[in-house]
């Protein structure tokens, strides 16, 4: 049970980081971003590309050779790449859509198309196989009650620190206040001198960078797959919804809870021999939450029917 709790915390921190990113974006732009998972995968794939040894030719269809950089530098570069990707998406795709008053549902369908497109670009140009980061194997050790590798412990600690920093930034900086202002009312914040286009651009960039970080976490703990983003996307939605859509702190807690729920449910007696169904439990919880407390655990009550 404790092992599963440890695994749950790890999955939880991944989902938590990704949910905050999704929730931030939804809060400011009202876009339900189905392509969020693909930005997560980009973080992992870019890290793989930057850090793999030069002769690692299985990857990238022999067309590009990896760079063989130091792993930490690769991670930072990959997060920057994700930020750039998010920024480009906003400038060349979503800003024009917004200016043309394309409705929310149309934008949602566009993100689904984008997700399918980008995911299969990864399949074609990046990796059809399951890959691992070029890191040494590590032995599991016991920390407090949990068995995990030192690397996974690092993921957990970095994840928690990032969460705290994001929380502080949102609460106390001018930028964070401006984001919350645009979230509450785009028009009113424009009137009070906030350039909402810039705020939305910054939101896209920071949301994508967080997603990229989540992808690096996911790939460090597990592996790199072309469809890794889509596999985890519904759990991220679940985390976001559980905490309350649009609330960053809710998304943090919600993501953590979903991760723990998924991994601990494996250990429940009636789940014996049904490990495949573990995601179904989390998704079921999400549907129930949406039905009976649609504002989530921490969200404010508003009409969402």
């Amino acid at each position: 049970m404790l092992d599963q709790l440890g695994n749950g915390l790890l999955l939880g921190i991944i989902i938590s980081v990704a949910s905050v990113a999704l929730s931030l974006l939804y809060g400011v732009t009202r876009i339900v971003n189905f392509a969020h998972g693909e930005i997560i995968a980009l973080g992992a794939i870019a890290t793989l590309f930057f850090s793999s040894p030069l002769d690692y030719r299985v990857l990238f269809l022999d067309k590009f050779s990896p760079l063989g950089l130091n792993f930490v530098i690769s991670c930072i570069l990959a997060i920057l790449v994700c930020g750039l990707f998010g920024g480009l998406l906003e400038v060349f795709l979503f800003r024009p859509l917004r200016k043309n008053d394309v409705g929310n549902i149309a934008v949602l369908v566009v993100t689904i198309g984008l997700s399918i497109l980008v995911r299969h670009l990864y399949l074609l140009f990046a990796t059809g196989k399951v890959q691992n980061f070029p890191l040494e194997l590590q032995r599991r050790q016991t920390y407090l009650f949990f068995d995990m590798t030192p690397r996974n412990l690092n993921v957990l600690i970095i994840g928690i620190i990032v969460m705290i920093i994001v929380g502080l930034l949102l609460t106390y900086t001018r930028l964070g206040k401006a984001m919350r202002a645009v979230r509450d009312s785009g028009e009113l914040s424009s009137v009070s001198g906030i350039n909402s286009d810039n705020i939305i651009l910054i939101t896209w960039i920071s949301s994508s960078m967080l997603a990229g970080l989540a992808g690096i976490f996911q790939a460090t703990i597990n592996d790199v797959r072309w469809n890794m983003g889509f596999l985890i996307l519904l759990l991220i939605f679940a985390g976001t919804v559980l905490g309350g859509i649009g609330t960053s702190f809710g998304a943090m807690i919600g993501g953590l809870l979903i991760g723990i729920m998924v991994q601990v449910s494996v250990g429940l007696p009636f789940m014996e021999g049904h490990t495949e169904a573990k995601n179904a439990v989390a998704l079921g919880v999400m549907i129930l939450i949406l039905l009976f407390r649609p504002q989530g655990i921490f969200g404010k009550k508003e009409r969402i029917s």
Partner: protein
Amino acid sequence: MTSAKISFRLIFSLFVTAFSIYLVFLLNPDGAPRILLNLFTFAGIYGLSAIGLNVHFGWTGLLNFGHASFMGVGAYVTLLLMPHAAGREGEVTTTGLPFFAALILGIGAAALFGLLLGLPAIRLRGDYLAIVTIAAAEIFRLLVRDLESITGGVYGIINYTENFQKYRPLFIDNFSENLGFSPSQAWVCLAAWVSIFITVLLLKRLSDSPWGRALRAVREDEDAVRAMGKNAVWLKLQSFMLGAGIAGLSGVLLAFNYGSLETTVFIPLLTFYVWAIMILGGVGTITGPIFGSIIFWVIISETDRLAYLLFENANGQQLAGVRFLLVGVLIMFLMIFRPSGLLGKKEELLLDVK
């Protein structure tokens, strides 16, 4: 909207469809009839499913992204009620209902599942409903995969096609022999297009009825419907059931076309295929998805050939990637530049969350 304008659109769609079929002949000088049969079978089945989705989204404005699960429920219930073999050992079940009884129960089960999935629709706004439906579809798929003792799990169901093929009329065999078709696929193809024909007739009647007008009124302004004394909730649920039943029928046909049924058929990508077809054909129309489906499948089936040329040393998974990639591009571009599709009317499109 003048009728001249509509008929212009119809002629244009017919022209594009005819051209895309011509393209198949052009690209496949040898095996065109066989490829066309395959294409029309898939086009018929997916077109039928898209017609069902159009009842949800086009008529009632319900953002359903769990369409694959309706097809799945229809297929699984129907097959499991008939004689079949399932699971790793291929455990044989010899007793079962005759095909038509099982089919009706399967469609009924799909409609019931639609009712179940429609319940969240009473309370939730569009984008939330999208998340709920896609999650519910995944739950369905994961459970089916997990309940191996009943559904065969990842090993799937086999040996069920005879239940349907034994009704195959003799003329299909003669006809297929002349053209080099597979007679069983020809029979599925015919069944799919007959189903489309009947469904379209039914929907045409419903669409002009007071019920159909009330449905579209729900899409436009729910409060107004309530004010007129109509039960908007019940209308939404009925729409969900009707569309889900149609999808269930198409799921059964899909199962008979494949010859064996696995859970991987009902991944979310299936839903997105159907969405692409619906948007291509025209949201809110009845016949639009038929044209959309034919054109879509011409594009899809000819992409494989293109992919071979582009990526010489790509493996099968990557070749399939090219076609999915194209589906993504199609969905994006249609939604941005022509959200009403070939036949749709822009005024009848619900794209804003109220």
